[in-house]
């Protein structure tokens, strides 16, 4: 079985991200094993749980969630790129407690090492 890893660097409100989603779904339906998507640079914004795109626009976040659920597709977001863009996995409110995350559940916070791992395992790595 052919394996594929994808690096996404474009934000949810760009049509380039729609292309990435389309490409990944076509790959899966063609029988390619997509071993993971790594979100880097502005790509991490796809994981924001407070994202609100107008109802009549393409809902990239819902598409990512669907791909994650239907096909068990791992969605990794780069922790450093996330922090630079306001995405964090622990928020200290006034009480100093770790409360909630602003990252959507379909996504996993990962280090850059995860991309190395995906790259070492995949037959092809595509940047979209």
């Amino acid at each position, binding site marked *: 079985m052919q394996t594929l890893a994808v690096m996404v660097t474009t934000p949810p*409100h*760009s*049509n*380039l991200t*729609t*292309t990435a989603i*389309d490409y990944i779904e076509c790959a899966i339906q063609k029988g390619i094993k997509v071993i993971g998507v790594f979100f880097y640079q502005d790509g991490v914004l796809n994981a924001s749980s407070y994202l609100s795109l*107008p109802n*009549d*626009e*393409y809902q990239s976040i819902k598409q990512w969630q669907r791909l994650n659920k239907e096909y068990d597709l791992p969605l990794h977001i780069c922790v450093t790129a996330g922090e630079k863009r306001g995405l964090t996995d622990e928020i200290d409110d006034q009480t100093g407690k770790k409360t909630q995350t602003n990252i959507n559940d379909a996504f996993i916070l990962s280090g850059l090492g995860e991309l190395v791992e995906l790259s070492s395992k995949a037959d092809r790595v595509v940047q979209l």
Partner: protein
Amino acid sequence: MINKKQSIAILNSTAPFASTNGKDALDLALIFGSYEQNTSLFFQGDGVYQLVKKQSPDKISTKDYLKTFAAFEFYDIKHIYVCAASLDQRALSDDFHIDNVTVLTTSEFSKELHARKIILRF
């Protein structure tokens, strides 16, 4: 309160779909227009692709924000200018998906731009 009318140029230089520039520029144009500011739209460079007829954004799952261009008159957008040289370079005709577009030579385009008090470019 909006205490004086300004002449505003919204200069479009980006193709419609890959970035939100076109949509963001449109939103600005409509709001300036609806507040009765003297608002004009300028299209140059890859921005002219926003005026091309028979686009089908549904083929790439994108909302057709270009449809809203039809509402320019309603929003009191004064002028819509497009740079002839930019059309020529891209082998595009002057057959646009909206009416009342004025095609200007590079020199005329520049002069109209210079007549505005505020210029925002996307």
